[in-house]
């Protein structure tokens, strides 16, 4: 997974951003799979931010996201990790979200 400093908008807390493209089936599936996974993990209050690249393509450039859906996790230190795809692989999604379950320091 890549790691890069986050922008100044998310400097402190871990943030989830889901990049989607309108009502594309994979985007809808990703939204559903993420919601399910967060609930199952007991972190349903994580409330991911959602960015529709069709409406704001400049955000894709800003975040370097050109494949959708993509789930970006910006941790407290501002480092980014990205999980691409419709998040249908439960195991990889669970692994990706695991930092959210760790107690905040």
């Amino acid at each position: 997974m890549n790691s890069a400093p986050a922008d100044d908008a998310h400097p402190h807390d871990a943030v989830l951003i889901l990049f989607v493209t309108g009502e594309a089936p994979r985007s809808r599936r990703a939204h559903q799979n993420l919601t399910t996974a967060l609930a199952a993990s007991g972190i349903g209050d994580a409330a991911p931010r959602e960015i529709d690249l069709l409406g704001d393509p400049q955000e894709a450039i800003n975040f370097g996201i050109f494949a959708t859906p993509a789930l970006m996790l910006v941790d407290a230190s501002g480092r980014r990790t990205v999980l691409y795809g419709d998040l249908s692989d439960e195991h990889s999604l669970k692994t990706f979200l695991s930092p959210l379950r760790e107690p905040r320091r």
Partner: protein
Amino acid sequence: MNDTDTTTERGLIKRATGIHHLDAVTHGGLPAAGATLVVGEPGCGKTIIGLQILASALARGEGGVFMSFEEAPEQILRNFDSFRWGRQLRESSRCEILDGQAIKGGAFSGGFDIEGLLAVLDHCAKRVEGAWIVLDGIDQLLRRQPDSQSAIDQIVQLNDWSIEQGYSLLLTGKHTGKDRFQPDHLGGIEFMLNTILVLSNTLVDKRLNRRFRIAKYRGTSHNPNELAMLIDATGIQLPYAEPFAAEAVPAAGERISIGIERLDSILEGGVYRGSITLISGQPGTSKTTLGAAFVAAAAGRGERALLLSFDEFARQIVRNVATLGIDLQSPIDSGHLKVVARASWDGLVEEHYMAVLALLDDFQPDCLVIDPASALLKSSGADSAFLALERLIAVTRTRGITTMITSLSEADDPFGESSLSHASTLADTWIVLRYQINGGERNRSLSVVKSRGTAHSNQVREMILSSEGVDLADVYPFGSEVLMGTARAQKESEEVDLRQRQVKERFRQQQQLELEIDKTRASIQQGQAELERLQEELLAEHRDQTATDRGADHHQDSILRRRNPGQGGQDQ
């Protein structure tokens, strides 16, 4: 869609890439709306093609978008600074270079869409008002799809989108095997796209040879052959891309001097302007000297001449031929002559070919010497050196450049050498230089094997080099041979002696005749004097006769008067 630099062929609109040779082989450019796949091994020039097309568009005042899934924008710009057009990419405000490499570090969970990518590309293309979009290393993105069919579907999606939006989309992708049209992980893509360019690398004699081929360009004429490709500071070069326009070859009737007076005479005044002359001979038979004489004569006429040497360095040539009375330094100084040396082993055949073309473009010579053209055989290259030479000759013919190429012969077989088998058929005039070994000495000979449009002599002649220049000796046949060297000199000496003896004999005969004339004249004068004396004697005789006759008449009259006194006659 940007309509600049587009042509239409059978309904297909092509957009000029700005890469001259690429536009030549594609007969006008790549699809103005639709995707072109550029596929090849790592390091074979895919990215360069994309960026050069983009730079060309920028140079024309257009915009363009480039996205790399393999390298960071700054790294790309740094890598391409060395190209002449590299700065254009860095400085133009209408050049959008996007960083798509973040995908490399991502994890994947299921399939993904590219609508977001399309939205970004459209957004950027509109912002810079560009018609060219390059996705460099698209396989790096699509190979992340869990199944190859999804990846192929998205290539089709990209193609459809570019057609619909009117963009010229260039997709580059790597493959690692020979003769493959599709990037790794994208098997079957070749059936989905109408335009596919294949780049490849081959090692020939441990030298890298780049190749280019249009594997597919549906619905349009194009050059389908695999072509040599070079990459230099100008970018992509396809040396043999230009078609040969046979109808453009002029046929001048003017003859120009070859630089040796007697050889000009043999050729009825020299060679035709714009023709090709081949000089073949073994080492040391003065091929270079003839070439030097040729360019010196051209410069002497005020023309521009180029001497390209694969054997010697320029200064050495100038120095060496100066000892033979051929001055190359003066025309070099005046700008009429350029002497350029290249090492045949230090480049591919195609590189030499392009270098010569660049020299022709730059210097615009009227006359050209390539010495020896056979040195090209030592150059590496997947294509034949003969092909390069033939193309070069075609270019000089088309441009009306009178060309002399020299060729190194195999020992003792100047007619059978392999290097001549092609070139000699292309040459209008073929002159063979040889060594003739007779009487323990080696002499240079010259003969004209052929000269199209000229009733030339087939006589083998001795070629003489001296500080006065190059000349051909008089011919002294001796049986089936021609005397040369000392034998010729001895024969010449004998001829001189004979001529001197003949002169002396004639002088003696003339003197004898003059003596006879004098004697005769004296006899005539003597006879004339005798004649005059006799005439005077005769005249005197006539006078005496007259006087005598008068005395006799008077006496008779006296007698008659005495006999007839009555009639008054009476002697006193």
